[in-house]
């Protein structure tokens, strides 16, 4: 399986930024759980990173649910322009057969390498569950240090969302002879893309 090679888009750490050590902690934990992690500066960099990534991994189709980050980075258009066949509606039909699902998730928990999915939207959920690769976009500024803080944040919403998912790496099982095997019911690859630029549009 191809791993990340597009180093030029990966953010170079800058000591003054607040979430720096949080990001590093997060990355360590997520990679330990067989997840992949990358950090870019601008929303526009998401496409610049994903296009060669998809090409390298021979991913030609993807499903996408629009969100502040995808809009700010014109992700849908740019992936289409790059020749990726993109689906955004009737995802119950499409999600099982696309090569990747792209969704924005709400928070990251540095302590565990976990991303928090507010999944009230059914399409967003399906894209995070059914395709073999889940690309999760998240704002670097939405990293919180601990599980306890994340629970507090969820609870501080007007109401607990109907579906909240913690995702930490790809789907896994050890049910046969306790051998760790990746990708049973959910995605076999999980890629977290952190975006430093703050995009608050439409929230």
């Amino acid at each position, binding site marked *: 399986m191809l791993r990340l090679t597009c180093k030029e888009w990966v953010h170079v750490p800058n000591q003054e930024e607040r979430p720096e050590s949080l990001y590093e902690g997060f990355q360590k*934990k997520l990679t*330990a*759980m067989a997840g992949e992690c990358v950090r870019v500066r601008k929303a526009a960099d998401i496409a610049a990173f994903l296009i060669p990534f998809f090409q390298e991994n021979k991913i030609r189709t993807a499903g996408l649910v629009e969100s502040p980050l995808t809009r700010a980075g014109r992700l849908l258009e740019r992936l289409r322009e790059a020749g990726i066949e993109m689906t955004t509606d*009737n995802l*119950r039909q499409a999600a*099982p057969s696309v090569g990747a699902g792209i969704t924005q998730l709400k928070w990251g928990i540095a302590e*565990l*390498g*976990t991303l928090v999915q507010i*999944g*009230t*939207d*059914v399409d967003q*959920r*399906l894209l995070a*569950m*059914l395709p073999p690769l889940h690309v999760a976009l998240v704002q670097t500024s939405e990293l919180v240090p601990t*599980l*306890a803080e994340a*629970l*507090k944040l*969820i*609870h501080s919403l007007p*109401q*607990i*969302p*109907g*579906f*909240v*998912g*913690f*995702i*930490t*790496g*790809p*789907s*896994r*099982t*050890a*049910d*046969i*002879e*306790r*051998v760790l*095997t990746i*990708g*049973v*019911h*959910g*995605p076999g690859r999980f890629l977290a893309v952190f975006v430093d630029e703050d995009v608050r549009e439409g929230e």
Partner: protein
Amino acid sequence: MADKEFKGKIEQALDNSTLRGALGRFGEFYEKAREQVYEGYDFQTLRDQVAEVKSYAASHLDEMLDQFERAATARGAKVFRAETGEDANRYISELALKHKVKSIVKSKSMASEEIHLNDALAAKGMDVQETDLGEWILQLCHQTPSHMVMPALHMTKEQVADVFTDHLGRINDPDIAALVKTARSELRSKFLEADMGISGANMAIAETGTLMVVTNEGNARLTATLPRIHVFLVGVEKMVPKFEDAGCILQTLPRNATAQAITSYVTMVTGPTPVYMPDGTIQDKELHIVLMDNGRRKMYADDKFKKTFQCIRCASCLNVCPAYQLVGGHVYGHIYTGGIGTILTAFLNEEKFAENPQNLCLQCGKCAEICPGRLDIPEMILELRTRFAEKKGLPFTQKFALDIVANRRLFHSLLRVASLAQKPLTKGQPVIRHLPMFLSGLTEKRSLPAIAPVPFRDIFKDIPQNVKDVKGTVAFYAGCLVDFVYPKIGEGVIAVLNDKGYKVVFAEGQSCCGAPAVYMGDKPNAKKSAMLNIEALKAESVDYVVSACPTCTHALKDSYPALLAGDPAWEERAAVLSRKALDFSKLLANLGGLPEGGDGRPLKVTYHDSCHLKRKMGVYLEPRAHLSRTAGIELVEMNESDHCCGFAGSYSIKFPQISAPILEKKIKNIEATGADVVAVDCPGCLMQISGGLDQVNSPIKVKHTAEILLEKRGD
């Protein structure tokens, strides 16, 4: 007492090399991996939180259930309270019929297995599909889980491949990645077709009406997202008061269950969410929550079993259980396996089904040490054992033996006679290597010690106690093994205490501490022993009572007050004895320990922790300190030094076939250290381990710490 059929199942499990291999490898991996994954976390604080959160919910159960129901209903869920399993089955079947459900996907729910929900639904003509990989494999080959978290732990990839081949009508190779892929595609189509999803939950948050599910495979997420009807089947013990309370459970459940910091997924469902309907429209699904009792309240109402509501079903009590590690889950006979399973079976299935498996517990306490809910499972199992014994009586031979032990004069004179009668068996050696006929199991993997020619009680009179500057008096409680088999240990204790300025007295009237009766569930004889020893030891007239056997010390300290609670004639005396009773190494440490000293001759020593000393009294640093301060001794740690040696009192007689492989592993760990001597603080462990070493002709000696101190420091 375990019956013949049960013993047959144990033999079968022990003969299953696949099972033994899988369980053994897991056991070895688990303990260290769990420790690593808790690095940087204070497990004691976390488990305190879990115990607090869960016990609060349990003691306010009606309030919690009402609050949960209100919150969940306000969000659009339908809540049904099922008093029994039949109620739950009926509700779910009728719901499925009403909505013309044809196919159902299930994510893992032990509660549904408890009530045979699949059978109930299949009887109505519905296709029910387990989707947890392990559960699916078992469903296909009609087996029950052998572990609560890893249900198919007992199967090899070859067996799984055969099951798939049979089911799918095409050859499946025993390649794990390929098998998982096959399961993914087979079950994927089931997910997409299903009209109904059924899930279990790990937590039900009363405050918000939220259900939380912890999984790795992602099947619970799909179950909660694809079908148009979703049913949660939740035991009432799953209640958690506040949303944030989930934190401590999320921190401990994956760590204790599979040594993961967190599972791949945690799914939180609060009220119905939109789904795709068969016609392609997006609408809110139907969400039903069945809150099931089925014997749980009865368990809570029973004072001795209240704490079962603090269980978070991590199954770590199975993972560290020496008996489970050998025999696996199927011998337990029902859905719930291992230590906690035995207790759950008694209340949630039928009490009689727990009668055989409760015997498997060695009382080593390893599970209680790591339980995130602070359940004392061994104590609860002992309570079950006592109740069975009270209800049905012990078998004649056991009862007869315990009656003799409780009669000091008879017991002691029999031991003296035995010392002479054993001569043909010992063949002039200090051990018995072979016993004839049905007793041969006892000497299969270990030799038994011969009874000493002169018991300690007779030797004691001739020990000169030259104590200058007497600081106080200590009553020595010898216990059967020191008194009649290893009197040398007693001599060591006296020498060391004299050295510390204490005179030692020995009460002739003392006898067996009653532990055998306690562990076999014979309360009347245990009480008899308690009174006899309290009377003999007269703790009121000495500064301390010391014993060199942690099992005896535990009896004096903890069992006697419990046995005699509420008895005005004895309660106070038991309390005084409990306060003054200490194990040898602990007392020595309390008296300031030993100065540097010793003969300086090199001796490589490894230390074996006795279960009762480490886990009932928290003493494990003290004996190591005494040994390390003795010139010449080099202390080396063995792997798994605090794992049970397999003696466990009468256990080695009840289940020699389980006790023997536990001992074998201990012997291997000892041999790997290259030590000359194994130091122990328990004469029971001493007997077991030296018996095992003798059978493999090992030159390694086993000695009690007191004995070693006497040899290395005695003038």
